[in-house]
Every structure is written in structure tokens, then in C-alpha cells.
């Protein structure tokens, strides 16, 4: 009964949307702000990747909020799953030798790849969030493959806090130097398409990369804590 009503309602809404969607032509330029970013972005921010310059420079404050949401979600998850830890540790069946070695071998490579992604965020596709996720996936690999090995909680918390701190401090320095707005790009822009360009963007993306990586790794850690 409920499913029939739901399907009928959704079909009605779908029909309504079909009548509307024809008015949104596919593949045309719809906003001018995107054009402006594309045209002026390189001169204004020095980053080759316009998405990066939007995320970290034009809309940097939003990103700070996003990082905060991530942080709050991680805290909430920790709070929701916080239980009194059981003293006795169950015997964990070790993984096979091949898996264990493979994971240990792959782990630094994945970390390296993640680092590459977020260091080159202003030049190539990718950036702090993607790189951070890749770093976190390396930790998932370790959790699943090499059982019993964990990242130390203090270390992950420290890295995470430092990442957030760097973001805020760089933004505040920009505010202090320029006096106009938060996250002012106060460092020299450098030469386009080189690693040391785009001012504060690589610094911020590295900070975000560390922060997101440690945060997501912490989330996984919390989730897996008792299941093992």
C-alpha cells in the first residue's frame, strides 16, 4: 500500500519535473560567475586548476565551514560509539602471509600517491579532499589486511588539529596582511604551472589533505573498534 502510494507520488513528481526540465538546456553556459573565474582565475590566484582556486580562494570560507562539518561529524561519531572499553582483547586471527606482505608493501605507495594528489592540487585534478580520502583508504587497507595494527589516536588527533590550525592561521595571516578578507592570497603567485605557485593554495591543500586523511582514518578506526 505504502509503496504503491510512494510510486504514484514519485511518478507524479517525475512528470512535473519532466515538464520543467526541458527549460534547462543541456550544455549551455548558465552563469557568468563561472566564466569570470575561468577568465580571471589564473591571474587572480595563480592556480592552474580553477576548481581548486574556487574551493580554496574564492570560496575559501565555505571550505573552512566544510572542514568544520567534517570535524563535527567525526566528533559526533566518536561520541555515538563511545563505550567503556572492554579490557579483555579477543584473539585475532592473523591474515595470510601474502595479504599481510601485500598490504605492508602497498601502504607506503598509496600514501605516496595520496600525498602527490594533494600536493599537486593546484596543478592537476585532485586536491586535499581526494588525497585525504586516498590516504584514509591506505589506512583501511592496513586495518583490514594487517589486523591489530592501528594508527595511534594521539598522533591522528594531533595531525588533524594541526591541519585545522594551519588553515585558520593562514587565513588569519591573510586577514592581517591584506586587511580585506579572510584567506587573502598574500604569498607571491609564482610562475604558472609550476609546483611553487598559487601562493597559499598548496599550503592550504596540504593542510586539508592531512586533516581529511587523519579524520577519515579516525572515523574508520572508531567504526571498527569493537567489531574486531
Amino acid at each position: 500500500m505504502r509503496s504503491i502510494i510512494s510510486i504514484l507520488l514519485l511518478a507524479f513528481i517525475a512528470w512535473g519535473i519532466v515538464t520543467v526540465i526541458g527549460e534547462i538546456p543541456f550544455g549551455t553556459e548558465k552563469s557568468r560567475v563561472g566564466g569570470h573565474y575561468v577568465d580571471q582565475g589564473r591571474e587572480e590566484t595563480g592556480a592552474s586548476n580553477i576548481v581548486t582556486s574556487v574551493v580554496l580562494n574564492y570560496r575559501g570560507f565555505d571550505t573552512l565551514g566544510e572542514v568544520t562539518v567534517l570535524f563535527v561529524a567525526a566528533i559526533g561519531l566518536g561520541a555515538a560509539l563511545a563505550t567503556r572499553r572492554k579490557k579483555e582483547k579477543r584473539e585475532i586471527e592473523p591474515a595470510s602471509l601474502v595479504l599481510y606482505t601485500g598490504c605492508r608493501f602497498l601502504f607506503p605507495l598509496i600514501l605516496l600517491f595520496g600525498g602527490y594528489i594533494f600536493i599537486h592540487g593546484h596543478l592537476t585534478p585532485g586536491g586535499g579532499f581526494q588525497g585525504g580520502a586516498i590516504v584514509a583508504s591506505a589506512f583501511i587497507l592496513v586495518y583490514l589486511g594487517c589486523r591489530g595494527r592501528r594508527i595511534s589516536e594521539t598522533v591522528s588527533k594531533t595531525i588533524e588539529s594541526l591541519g585545522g590550525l594551519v588553515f585558520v592561521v593562514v587565513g588569519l595571516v591573510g586577514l592581517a596582511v591584506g586587511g580585506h578578507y579572510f584567506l587573502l592570497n598574500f604569498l607571491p603567485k609564482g610562475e604558472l604551472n609550476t609546483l611553487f605557485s598559487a601562493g597559499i593554495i598548496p599550503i592550504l591543500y596540504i593542510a586539508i589533505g592531512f586533516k581529511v586523511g587523519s579524520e577519515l582514518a579516525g572515523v574508520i578506526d572508531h567504526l571498527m573498534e569493537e567489531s574486531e
Partner: protein
Amino acid sequence: MILVVSLLVLVMLLAAIAAFFFKDLMSAVIAACMVSLIASILFYFLQAPDVAMAEASIGAALVTAVFIVAIRRTERYEK
């Protein structure tokens, strides 16, 4: 080109419908993972490599891992 895209969309929708019907939550999660993966390919076709990368690494990998961990801590079959 457009036929490839159409095929991908079709597969994606089928995977989503499969996620609706599977009683085994693990299978449903894998179907959802497939949806994310194909979505990331579509993002790449739409000239959004950043998003494609994020969707592939986060949507397809991390979310699936989180789901699997959660299912292991609860129960596997939808009653």
C-alpha cells in the same frame, strides 16, 4: 560516445534498482558502490575530473568500506 554514456546510465540505474531489491545488505552496498563508480565515470565525461576523483575515492571506496563495517557490526539481512 553518447551510446556508451547511455549504456552507463542504464547500468547505473539498474544497479540502483538492484540496491532497492536486494535483501542482502552487503549486495545492496556493492550495488550502491557500483552506482558511485559509474557516476564518477559520468563525472569524468562531464569534464569534471576533480569531482570524478573525489567520487571514486570517497563515494566508491570509503563509503563502501564504512557501510561494510557498519553491516558487520549490525546484521546482514533485511527482514
